[in-house]
């Protein structure tokens, strides 16, 4: 295994605070993510991990703080802009397009890159007039790679709503990958998987990280996974950051142990 090159800071979260009415979901959180690294966020339930991701990709607007991406600072961003910058995301509660087939779900990930307009698409044809068909085929080819990669060939045309939970998680990842993101935010991608599947998933994540150099931010409750595959870990508790460092550092941190890991670990 070749040594990984961790690069510059790509994503810098500064003093983010987020409140919902009286609930303080995040209080003054700062951390950074470096290019190519696998950055884990852990913490007990309701700590604010998902909310953190939502802030990064513009679903929630934090009341305070800022986030910079490749040195460019922004406070209020909408999801579209974030997506255009190359930040993709998977969801904890599965936010797939249930009525669409696996292929179509993945293809939506390519939509940002589609150039032909509405009319061109309406008149797309197999006779080589216009670009729409060619473009479609190129995107399809890309998506097929992801399908092979995630090993969901058999389910290409199945509506995702009827897939078992674990496969849906995979499709969710695939859709994010289809965006060819620079940063991939993963919210509990392995929940509901058994060990073997978690191993596969870890493999996928590491491969993405290696092969495409994608930076990964990962929320996960399985400490085995976190310890094994992440480069650095942020620990949140009740909206506050209580730890940040290498897996070993974090595992040794008293506060983290009592807040999150429990005694038996």
């Amino acid at each position, binding site marked *: 295994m070749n040594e990984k090159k961790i690069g510059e800071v790509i994503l810098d979260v500064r003093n983010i605070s987020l409140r919902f009415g009286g609930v303080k979901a995040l209080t003054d959180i700062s951390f950074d993510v470096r290019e190519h690294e696998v950055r884990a966020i852990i913490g007990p339930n309701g700590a604010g991990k998902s909310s953190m991701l939502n802030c990064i*990709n*513009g*679903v929630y607007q934090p009341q305070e703080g800022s986030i910079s991406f490749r040195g460019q600072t922004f406070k209020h961003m*909408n*999801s*579209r802009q*974030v*997506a*255009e910058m190359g930040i*993709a*995301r998977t*969801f904890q509660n599965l*936010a*797939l*397009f*249930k*009525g*669409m087939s696996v292929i*179509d779900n993945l*293809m*939506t*990930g*390519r*939509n*940002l890159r*589609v150039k*032909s307009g*509405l009319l061109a*698409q*309406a*008149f*797309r*044809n*197999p006779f080589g007039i216009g670009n*729409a*068909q060619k473009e*479609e*085929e190129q*995107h*399809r*080819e890309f998506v*097929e790679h992801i399908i092979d990669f995630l090993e969901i060939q058999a389910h290409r045309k199945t509506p995702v709503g009827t897939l078992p939970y674990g496969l849906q998680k995979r499709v969710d990842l695939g*859709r*994010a990958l289809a*965006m060819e993101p620079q940063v991939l935010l993963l919210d509990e991608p392995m929940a509901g998987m058994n060990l073997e599947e978690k191993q596969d998933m870890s493999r996928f994540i590491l491969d993405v990280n290696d092969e495409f150099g994608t930076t990964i931010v990962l929320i996960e409750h399985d400490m085995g996974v976190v310890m094994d595959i992440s480069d650095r870990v942020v620990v949140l508790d009740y909206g506050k950051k209580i730890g940040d460092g290498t897996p070993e550092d974090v595992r040794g941190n008293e506060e983290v142990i009592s807040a999150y890991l429990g005694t038996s670990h």
Partner: protein
Amino acid sequence: MFYRENGQFKTSYRADQQIFAIAQDRWLVLALIAAAFIVVPMLASDYMMRAILIPFLIMSLAALGVNILVGYCGQISLGSGAFMAVGAYMAYNFFVRIPGMPLVPALLLGGLCATVFGVLFGLPSLRVKGLYLAVATLAAQFFADWMFLRVKWFVNDSPSGSVSVNNLQVFGLPIESAVSKYLFCLAVLVVLALLAKNLVRSAIGREWMAIRDMDVAAAVIGIRPMYAKLSAFAVSSFIIGVAGGLWAFVYLGAWEPAAFGVDLSFRLLFMVIIGGLGSIMGAFFGAGFIVVLPIVLNQALPELASLFGMSMTTATVSHVELMIFGGLIVWFLIVEPHGLAKLWSIGKQKLRLWPFPH
């Protein structure tokens, strides 16, 4: 056994991306279209054409349009009648006010006006969702009803407010006989259905469906809700508008706003739900169900009754017709909540496995 895709390996994505990827389907559909153009005109009676097939074709087209908005983009619309009315009345105005205006451009221009109207009343969809949006579309419906009744300009100052067209021609051929009307509607339908199919299987169609299924997630992968929703309103109301023009010009010939009332909007919505939301095929099934079934029931019931030695008054027939119609709707929904198109595809799936049960 016959419906097998085994051995049909796709060697390119293009092959797999064809509208009908399975050869049997492709041939079946081509055969159907050919039959519709060639065989049906030879066999169907005048009544069949004028009273059943033409309305069926036009309503299929309209349902197709509604399906894009409701089925693909998930925006519930009860204003389709209004979009049809705009298409019809504006096409009428282009047709009678501009000397020498040919029929097809008039219809298309009517469709474009419907597009504008549709986008306008689609604007609230950026904020209002689901059933609540139905109010916006109903506002469009009642506003259009009122406008075409009240604003004299739209009816070319006819005192009673009803308008009519005649002398329809396409490329110099008169559209008068049942066959020519039928073929004209069929041609328009086939072309627009093909374009619609292209759209829904392309990027824009996926944007619509993404917005329908989960708009927050769609936004996160970079889909602009505004563009997706408004383009759905635009495309859908264009198609509905053209259908409205056909309904008025070809089927009715003369009409008043009541011909595009809220009842029609409801019926169009039924068509897409019964036919299958998010399925082009569903539009045809739905139109068939809602247009043809009542007529069939209406004619079959007295015969049926007389088989048992009863005679039914027209009133009883239509009451029983309503009951059976309602009952069938419920029954089909129970058998397959996702509509006739889904039932069809399940049927195909079974056929594929045949003769093995699973």
